[in-house]
């Protein structure tokens, strides 16, 4: 019985409950102030200063061109090493093929 009474009281209280959502005065201003403070702190930190510095450099046409050319040269360098390895393996393979045409024992072994 007491549970039914409790439910009735609760329902009554819930029905009477009214929410008055009032945003404190200057809420928006405070939020933007906090954002501004965070922004200032971010800009002040070494990491972001460094990023900004690098970004500033990269956005200079001279440096942007230089880094793209450097990228191209890096690609060529890596490709040269890779091509040398591939060619070396292929030439060894061709050498073995040639030996197989001259040496009967090697010819039998390679079949």
């Amino acid at each position, binding site marked *: 019985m007491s549970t039914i009474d409790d439910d009735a009281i609760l329902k009554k209280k819930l029905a009477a409950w009214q929410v008055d959502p009032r945003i404190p005065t200057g809420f928006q201003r405070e939020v*933007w102030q906090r954002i501004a403070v965070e922004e200032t702190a*971010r800009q002040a930190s070494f990491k972001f200063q460094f990023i900004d510095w690098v970004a500033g450099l990269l956005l200079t046409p001279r440096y942007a061109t230089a880094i*793209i050319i450097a990228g191209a040269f890096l690609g060529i360098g890596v490709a040269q090493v890779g091509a040398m390895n591939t*060619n070396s393996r292929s030439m060894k393979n061709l050498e073995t093929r040639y030996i197989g045409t001259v040496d009967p*024992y090697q010819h039998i072994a390679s079949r």
Partner: protein
Amino acid sequence: MIPISTSHHAEAPRKAALVFLAALAAAAVAFCLYYHFATHHVKMMMSRPAGEMDWLRTEFHLTDDQFAKITALHKAYKPKCGVMCQRIMEANANLDRLINDNKNMTPAVEAALKQCAIVQEDCHRAMLGHIYAVGAEMNPPDRDRYLQMMKQWIIEPRLGMNAAVSKPPHD
């Protein structure tokens, strides 16, 4: 609203990242182009049926005349090499059979061993003759390098009996 915007500060790193991506793209394109052209010649040699002769030409700096003579020598040697392969496999197959059939040394096993040695000697003689003939067509430094490379295939033992026995006869 207070006009504070983070877009200005975010814009520079974003643009810088684009520059960085452009550099990566340049690296990738340069890699692909260079790799393709640098390996194209050797890949073509690999794909050709007589690519090993192209290899010989490149490796030992053969002129057209030298290459023509060596190709002719090679064509003349090829049937001899085929006959040698046949003799090797027959001698090895005979020795293999005799080893399986006998539990100790018999005159037949000894004869088969001798036959293998004779075949090997004949092979090496024919092969060395061909190597000398090919080397004679080359320039002296290339000839020396060629002989140096080929002599290991004469001197070093490298083929077990089973490898030759298990193969079908040479066509």
